[in-house]
């Protein structure tokens, strides 16, 4: 405020009136120029300020606005600044400041000013008022001070204060609560959820939230006071126990306006350690007790006062405590404590010493409770006791807690002593100060033993090898205050050291100084042992991985090698897996390219990649390159290791060096091939049977031979063996072979047999089959190995040989001659059966001795001479001589002998043959006689028959001669004459004429003989004679004579020559009839038999052309022969009939004809 400028009072009436008004109102008025200096100040202002009326600005001597002296120094700067601002900007001025009254007292005023502008808008004048607001200001200040005080109170009380709306919504938290929660009441607002619920959910411990909701909602509903303990979440997330109370404030109408609450942090209280809690409880008990159990006694100890609480609690009055005799009564004290109590009282009252005692006090509601009573005397100035003031404190809980604590302490001690660990404490300097019982039990040492004589720690319980290390570690920990951990071997009372682990932590006080070290030593011997075992095992495994003779490697799930075991490294000559890396390709590809045989690399890489992509294990054999450059075969297997979710974690690959095996296998295969070739090439049939005889292998040659393999014989319903045998063995041999084989299978004996096998082309061939069992170690037969050797050719040769031998033997024995063999020394080495039969069974020939007895005496000398000469010279021997038969008959023999020479010309053996020519000699004689007579036989034929025959025989050539003669004549007669043909015909004429002459000559010869008389004769003998006679003719025509002559035929009286002529004729006819027979043999059968009782019959049967007409056979001129006279059969019939017999012919059923004649036994002369 400045002094107002003085305005002349008499300028005009209107102005004067305005001035009066201004000056009358209890408000200061003023005006000022644009520079801010007053142009007018109302008089009342000037009066207040005590300024001279005439020039208000004079007050501001040397002052900016002229009011520095009246404005309170604390306000001036602010007000002046504002005034300057308004002067510059033209803003309205409004400010409050204290103005000094004339008596020096400052009072608050409020000034308000507004600019007045001229026609150009420039400020010409400021007009303002200043109002006394001091009382208002004072009231306001008082209010603010009180508000501040309250706010401070609310904020500073060590509790949370809060307000809730009647519905429970929080509407205010005090600062302490805001600080605690870390947010104000509205900070957690969210739509859709009440502020209270949000608060409960975010700040109340979950275990307490439900209770809080329940209790609070109950209170809100009933208006009852709220009290609950719960845990509240501090801004830092820590829950702290709170004791919360709230009471409603009600409106005059009784409705609840608001709830006021208080929340007290009792967390420290609750969480304080046991000592704190105990002391707090004690204090609480004290506080609770002091105002209640107060008593006074007279100096003599007679109770004279009890406070009301004593009575309430114990139910006793002062009167009750005074015995009838006026002394004190201790009825309220537990009987057990009463006497001691009484004595203590008496002593205190007697001596005046303060009283303190604990006892059990009987309560009105029942049980005794422990109470501690204390009493002190009040003395007057002279020291006399005026009164005793006592207080009794219920210490029952304390005592109980103490007992509990004691028990717990005991338990803890027990725990400490019994836990299987050594627990120890040391001073901050590391000197042991506590050991639990177990320490002593285990180590046998007491605390004292662990303190060295010089007061430092002793580590005598630590193994000497570990002692220094432990000592240093302990020293470090104690010095630096860091945790201690150490492992060492602890010496046990019971002997051996055991591994233990010690740990120690320092306990620090609030200022961080170490108060004590707490340590624990745990037996980890087993653990260490296990660990050592594990380490050993790990080492073993590692060694195993490196030492096992396989190559092990580990690959990533993508197949990149990450680990090779040492053996593999050594194999490749690698130092590290990464050495394989090559730019521009995966390590797998690089490794395969470097380490795998080029021929195998591509297939391995392909297989591996497929496997890795599919996650499938793979195995492969390929060649790996060893460090020395050689390739070796390996058998590689890879398998993935999967985690629980099945994803591949690693691939493990193992390679086994199988190079030697592969090579061995190759060698084996080669050998096997060789053997197989051998087996197939050997020129025998090889086969194998199982123990039951089922064929399970044929070699190639067998298959080629049989045309089928072992399995091809399988047939339903029969064993392979049976099927095979049935198919391949000759039916005649099958049973024998089967039996022999089965016998072998049962006995296990080798099989050996010769039989015929059927070749593929159906030909059976002889084989020599053998089989032997192969046995295992225990002697059981595993297989039968068999061989069949083709011996067919051999068999046939053998058979042929045997046949020949038999034939030769037969020949030797059967030839009708004597065969013999003589050694060069003359000893007989062989004679044939015929010879033995001749000389007799018991005859043994020895030339020197026997020859005299067998050779006819007339021939002996010549034979000996000749044979002796031959033996000497080697000349062939040939002689005819008579030998004596066993029956004594000498027979003519033709003996021949020839020597067999070796290559040097020496004689090995003499082979001799001695032919019986006796019959021949005799027959020759007989034949000679027969021939003589035969010519005469034809004399028996009648002349007529002869004539006819002769005519026919002669006529034919004559007819031919006539025809030829005519032809010849003709050939010569024609012109020109055919001389050539004429000559031919002339030659024929000569020929035919000679033929006719022959016939005539033959007939003449027939008639020269005379008839002979008949004599009995043997017809069979006669037939044999004729056959022998005609032997040459028979042989020349290829005819075989077969005779069937009945023995014992009676003799017949016949003309021997004539009958011989008949036989000769019939035989010759038969022979000639078979001339035309080309196919087959030409047998001529001659048979004799009886014909009835008085005749014998002779048949001559041929297989020739037969008779066309048998009736003509006997007619003259009839002949079937090309060259014959046709008179033979006619003559024969006449001879037979002359002997009283008959002769007839018949064609055979099949072929040829039979001529039969009979001869009468009692034959008379021909009729």
């Amino acid at each position, binding site marked *: 405020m400045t002094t107002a400028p003085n305005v002349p009072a008499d300028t005009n009436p209107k102005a004067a009136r305005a001035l009066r008004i201004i000056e009358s109102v209890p408000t200061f008025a003023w005006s000022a120029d644009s520079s801010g200096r007053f142009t007018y100040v109302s008089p009342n202002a000037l009066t207040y300020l005590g300024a001279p009326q005439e020039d208000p600005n004079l007050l501001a001597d040397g002052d900016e606005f002229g009011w520095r002296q009246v404005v309170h120094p604390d306000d001036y700067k602010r007000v002046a600044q504002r005034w300057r601002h308004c002067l510059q900007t033209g803003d309205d001025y409004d400010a409050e400041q204290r103005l000094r009254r004339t008596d020096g007292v400052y009072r608050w005023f409020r000034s308000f000013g507004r600019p007045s502008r001229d026609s150009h808008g420039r400020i010409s004048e400021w007009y303002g008022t200043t109002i006394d607001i001091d009382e208002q200001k004072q009231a306001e200040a008082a209010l603010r001070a009180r508000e501040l005080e309250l706010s401070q109170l609310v904020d500073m009380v060590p509790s949370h204060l809060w307000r809730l709306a009647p519905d429970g919504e929080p509407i205010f938290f005090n600062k302490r609560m805001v600080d605690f929660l870390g947010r104000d009441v509205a900070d957690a607002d969210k739509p859709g959820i009440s502020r209270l619920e949000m608060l409960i959910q975010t700040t109340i411990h979950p275990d307490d939230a439900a209770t809080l909701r329940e209790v609070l909602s109950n209170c809100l509903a009933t208006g009852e006071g709220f009290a609950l303990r719960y845990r509240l979440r501090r801004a830092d997330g820590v829950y702290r126990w709170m004791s919360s109370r709230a009471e409603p404030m009600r409106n005059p109408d009784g409705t609840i306006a608001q709830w006021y609450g208080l929340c007290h942090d009792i967390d420290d209280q609750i969480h304080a350690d046991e000592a704190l809690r105990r002391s707090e409880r004690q204090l609480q008990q004290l506080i609770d007790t002091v105002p209640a159990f107060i008593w006074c006694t007279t100096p003599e100890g007679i109770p004279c006062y009890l406070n009301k609480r004593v009575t309430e609690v114990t139910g006793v009055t002062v009167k009750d405590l005074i015995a009838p005799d006026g002394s004190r009564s201790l009825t309220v004290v537990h009987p057990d404590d009463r006497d001691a109590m009484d004595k203590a009282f008496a002593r205190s009252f007697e001596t005046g010493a303060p009283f303190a005692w604990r006892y059990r006090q009987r309560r009105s509601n029942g049980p005794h409770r422990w109470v501690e009573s204390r009493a002190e005397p009040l003395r007057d100035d002279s020291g006399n006791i005026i009164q005793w003031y006592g207080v009794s404190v219920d210490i029952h809980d304390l005592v109980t807690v103490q007992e509990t604590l004691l028990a717990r302490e005991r338990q803890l001690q027990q725990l400490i002593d019994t836990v299987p660990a050594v627990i120890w404490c040391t001073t901050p300097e590391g000197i042991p100060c506590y050991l639990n019982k177990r320490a002593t039990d285990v180590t046998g040492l007491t605390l004292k033993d662990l303190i060295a004589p010089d007061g430092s720690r002793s580590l005598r319980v630590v193994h000497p090898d570990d002692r220094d290390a432990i000592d240093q570690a302990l020293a470090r920990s104690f010095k630096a205050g860091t945790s201690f951990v150490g492992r060492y071997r602890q010496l046990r009372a019971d002997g051996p050291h055991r591994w233990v682990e010690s740990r120690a932590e320092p306990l620090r006080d609030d200022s961080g100084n170490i108060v004590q070290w707490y340590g624990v030593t745990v037996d980890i011997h087993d653990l260490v042992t296990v660990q050592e075992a594990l380490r050993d095992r790990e080492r073993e495994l590692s060694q195993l991985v490196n030492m096992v003779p396989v190559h092990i490697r580990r690959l990533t799930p993508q197949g990149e090698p990450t680990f090779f075991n040492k053996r593999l490294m050594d194999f490749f000559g690698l130092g590290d897996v990464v050495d394989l890396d090559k730019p521009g390709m995966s390590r797998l590809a690089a490794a395969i390219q470097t380490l795998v045989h080029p021929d195998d690399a591509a297939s391995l890489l392909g297989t591996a990649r497929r496997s890795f992509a599919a996650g499938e294990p793979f195995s492969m054999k390929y060649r790996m390159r060893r460090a020395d450059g050689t390739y070796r075969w390996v058998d590689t297997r890879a398998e993935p290791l999967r985690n629980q979710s099945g994803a591949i974690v690693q691939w493990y690959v193992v390679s086994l060096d199988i190079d030697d095996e592969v090579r061995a296998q190759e060698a084996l295969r080669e050998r096997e091939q060789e053997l197989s070739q051998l087996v197939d090439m050997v020129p025998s049939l090889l086969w194998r049977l199982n123990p039951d005889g089922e064929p399970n292998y044929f070699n190639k040659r067998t298959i080629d031979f049989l045309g089928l393999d072992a399995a091809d014989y399988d047939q339903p319903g029969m064993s392979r063996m049976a099927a095979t045998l049935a198919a391949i063995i000759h039916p005649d041999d099958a049973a024998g072979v089967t039996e022999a084989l089965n016998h072998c299978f049962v006995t296990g004996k080798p099989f050996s047999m010769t039989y015929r096998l059927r070749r593929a082309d159906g030909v059976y061939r002889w084989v020599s089959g053998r089989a032997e069992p192969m046995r295992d170690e225990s002697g059981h037969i595993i297989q039968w190995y068999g061989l069949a050797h083709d011996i067919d050719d051999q068999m046939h040769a053998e058979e042929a040989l045997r046949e020949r031998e038999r034939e030769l033997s037969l020949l030797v024995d059967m030839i009708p001659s004597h065969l013999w063999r003589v050694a060069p020394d003359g000893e007989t080495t062989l004679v044939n059966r015929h010879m033995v039969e001749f000389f007799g069974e018991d005859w043994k020939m020895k030339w020197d001795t026997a020859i005299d007895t067998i050779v006819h005496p007339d021939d002996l000398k010549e034979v000996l001479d000749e044979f002796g000469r031959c033996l000497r010279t080697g000349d062939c021997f040939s002689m005819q001589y008579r030998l004596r038969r066993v029956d004594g008959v000498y027979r003519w023999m033709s003996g021949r002998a020839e020597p067999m020479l070796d290559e040097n010309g020496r004689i090995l053996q003499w082979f001799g043959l001695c032919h019986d020519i006796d019959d021949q000699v005799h027959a020759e004689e007989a034949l000679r006689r027969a021939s003589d007579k035969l010519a005469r036989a034809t004399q028996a034929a009648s002349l007529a028959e002869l004539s006819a025959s002769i005519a026919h025989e002669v006529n*034919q050539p004559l*007819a*031919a001669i006539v*025809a030829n003669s005519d*032809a010849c004549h*003709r050939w010569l007669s024609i012109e020109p004459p055919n001389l050539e043909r004429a000559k*031919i015909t002339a030659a024929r004429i000569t020929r035919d004429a000679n033929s006719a002459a022959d016939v005539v000559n033959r007939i003449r010869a027939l008639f020269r003989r005379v008839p002979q008389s008949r004599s009995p004769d043997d017809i069979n003998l006669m037939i044999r004679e004729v056959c022998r006679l005609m032997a040459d003719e028979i042989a020349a025509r290829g005819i075989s004579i077969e005779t069937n002559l009945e023995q014992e035929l009676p003799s017949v009286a016949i003309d021997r020559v004539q009958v011989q002529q008949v036989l000769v004729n019939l035989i010759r006819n038969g022979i000639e009839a078979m001339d035309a027979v080309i196919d087959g043999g030409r047998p001529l059968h001659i048979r004799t038999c009886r014909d009835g009782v008085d005749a014998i019959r002779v048949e001559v049967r041929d297989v020739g052309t037969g008779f*066309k007409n048998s009736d003509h056979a006997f007619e003259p001129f009839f002949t079937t022969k*090309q060259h014959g006279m046709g008179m033979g059969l006619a003559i024969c019939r006449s001879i037979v009939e002359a002997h009283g017999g008959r002769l007839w012919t018949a064609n055979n059923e099949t072929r040829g004809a039979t001529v039969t004649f009979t001869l009468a036994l009692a034959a008379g002369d021909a009729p």
Partner: protein
Amino acid sequence: MSTPQEIVFVVDDDPRVREALKELLESFGWRGKTFAAAAGYAAYPKPDLPASLNLDVQLPDINGLEFQKELRRGAD
């Protein structure tokens, strides 16, 4: 010399006779065809020519007279 048209068949079992008759027929300019037996003649395909047959009585297979009767029967 032209081929003779006339033919004479001769059946005789004696070769010397057949030979001589054939020679005689040819010397007269006739053709002679000889047979050792009647069967041979019977089986022979006879040309359609003037012909005569000279037949022997004793023949190996059949009597010449009988054969003549058969021929006559066959001609009827």
